[in-house]
């Protein structure tokens, strides 16, 4: 059966301005009007809300929506010794900016970073809740290195740290751990280094583990990732046609996370094209996970529901056809 999931992020705010708005709470916290505990409470309320919304829309594997995260690297970098957080930098090819972490000293992992948040989210979820971490190459590419001055060394070091975090998430009961590697689609020549990093980050994990790529394709570098021991690979089938070409005449032995819904545009998908794509991909893998092509935070809140509804309904239609 085809399952549905999301990639990671979810819009942090709705259109309503209420006292539970994250936007207002952060403002008020910055101005010293509410405490860190008050802010934490708001994060919890909203984490619970986005999990409830995903479940109500029929998503099979949900996330915490990353509503505490400003981006995929700084939440971790700010709690890893050796990083400083610097000025705004463009987030890949989006009109979205993040604060760039700078490596200024030996990096070391002191204690679990995301585990408490994962545990809270899990307590709110009825469905399977996956944990999401940045991949080692992406972490390195989004950072500025003034310490090692050696990308290989940085990727390896970060991979070791991510491995410790992943193991802590596994111990906390995460059944699926996903590493996001969007950097791979922009820096294809670094595929071997990315793979080496991922193997290190995933070493010893017994839970389901895999990667997610988005904003582009892995055409030309896909094969080594397919038999590298990971349980699933996530690809973007909207931004380019490259992944579709790369999978032509191919059968995977691992799960395929398929980004079939455009999460960077508000336009609804062409229903027949979407169905054809899902049917085609279902033939290629023992387990297809249909999802948007990247995190949902690039969309305004009101656009998320129609997008996910269309996705879930199309997958249901495909599933019932396949039963016949």
């Amino acid at each position: 059966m085809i399952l549905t999931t999301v990639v990671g992020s979810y819009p942090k705010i709705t259109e309503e301005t209420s006292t539970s708005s994250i936007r207002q709470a952060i403002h008020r916290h910055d101005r010293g009007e509410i405490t860190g505990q008050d802010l934490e409470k708001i994060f919890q309320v909203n984490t619970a809300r986005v999990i409830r919304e995903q479940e109500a829309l029929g998503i099979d594997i949900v996330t915490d929506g990353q509503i505490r995260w400003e981006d995929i690297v700084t939440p971790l970098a700010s709690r890893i010794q050796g990083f400083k957080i610097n000025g705004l930098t463009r987030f890949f090819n989006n009109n979205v900016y993040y604060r760039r972490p700078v490596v200024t000293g030996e990096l070391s992992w002191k204690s679990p970073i995301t585990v408490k948040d994962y545990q809270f989210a899990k307590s709110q979820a009825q469905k399977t809740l996956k944990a999401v971490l940045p991949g080692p190459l992406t972490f390195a590419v989004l950072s500025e290195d003034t310490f090692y001055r050696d990308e290989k060394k940085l990727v390896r070091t970060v991979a070791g740290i991510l491995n410790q975090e992943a193991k802590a998430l596994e111990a906390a009961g995460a059944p699926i751990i996903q590493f996001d590697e969007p950097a791979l689609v922009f820096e294809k020549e670094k595929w071997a280094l990315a793979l080496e990093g991922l193997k290190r980050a995933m070493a010893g994990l017994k839970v389901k583990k895999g990667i997610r790529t988005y904003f582009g394709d892995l055409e030309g570098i896909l094969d080594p990732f397919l038999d590298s021991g990971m349980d699933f690979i996530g690809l973007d089938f909207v931004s380019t046609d490259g992944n579709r070409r790369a999978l032509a005449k191919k059968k995977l032995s691992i799960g395929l996370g398929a980004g079939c819904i455009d999460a960077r545009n508000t336009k609804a998908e062409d229903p027949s094209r979407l169905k054809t794509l899902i049917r085609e991909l279902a033939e290629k893998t023992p387990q297809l996970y249909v999802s948007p092509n990247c995190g949902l935070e690039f969309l305004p809140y009101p656009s998320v529901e129609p997008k996910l509804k269309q996705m879930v309904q199309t997958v249901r239609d495909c599933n019932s056809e396949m039963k016949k």
Partner: protein
Amino acid sequence: MTGLLTTTVGSFPKPDYLQKARNDFYRGKLSRQELFALEQKATQEVVRKQEEIGLDILVDGEMYRGDMVTYFAEQLEGFRISGLVRSYGNRYYRKPIAVGKIRRKGPVTVSWFAFAQSLTKKPVKGMLTGPYTIMDWSFDEQYPSRRDFTLALAEVVHQEAQDLEKAGAKYIQIDEPAVSTRPEEIGLAIEAMKVVTNGLKAKTITHICYGDFRKIYPEMLKLAVDQIDLELANRDFELLDLFKETPFTKEIGLGVLDVHRHDIDSKEKIKRGIKKALEILKPEKIYVDPDCGLKTRTPEEAFAKLKVMVEARNEVREELEAKTRKLAERT
């Protein structure tokens, strides 16, 4: 001497009273007319301030604009404005959505240009956002492809540029900060710019920022404009080395102020930047300006930075003139 003219990239910080008025307007506590009157007052002040500082080419300061893309989208037919999307940190903006054919209901910026120009004898630069950037920073539910969307916008921006020229603009700047985002689409940006500047007699400029220029250079020299304006100060003028390898064939807008820093740039650094540019281009080909729009600074910071910039330019000019005099004396 001529050359080394000073200018800015377009936006100035809004004074506190205007910021407050804009908030009040959105909350329905202030009428459109009341806001308009304050926008005019702020425009007058910012034009006067630019004259005082001694800039050569002025701008209207964009007191009436919010976001550089959403502002245009709000004035054009075919756009709807979406819900809030996060830009970074706790900052959100409303992103335009193309939901119908994009058309101009009438001139968008012309009356503001004319108003600003009426306040000064110095030339005021017309300021537009380029088609590629409007496309890249909008959602699109209307057009079959990014190219179709961009070219439709190019036609609209072209009409606006023509109207600015008719209204007397001698300089028209068409900002394309998004051009550096996707190097593989530089061809599309070039195609669209040809449409925008087609037949214009005014001096045309485009501003590009926030990206890896190495990936679009020298290709970006094909943009159909007279001048390309670049951020250079925030990378310590490193980019100029690239132009030593492959010549920069247009006029340059030389960004010499780091607009993302609160502190005032040192005169020595600015002079060093200008002199470095003079190694590869004639003074007539160099326009000295900040790296980017100044709207994220406080008014005090913005004006102090510009003042140092003009002083630095003046000193470089004097040094050049002294050199020429010496040469003349010898011969």
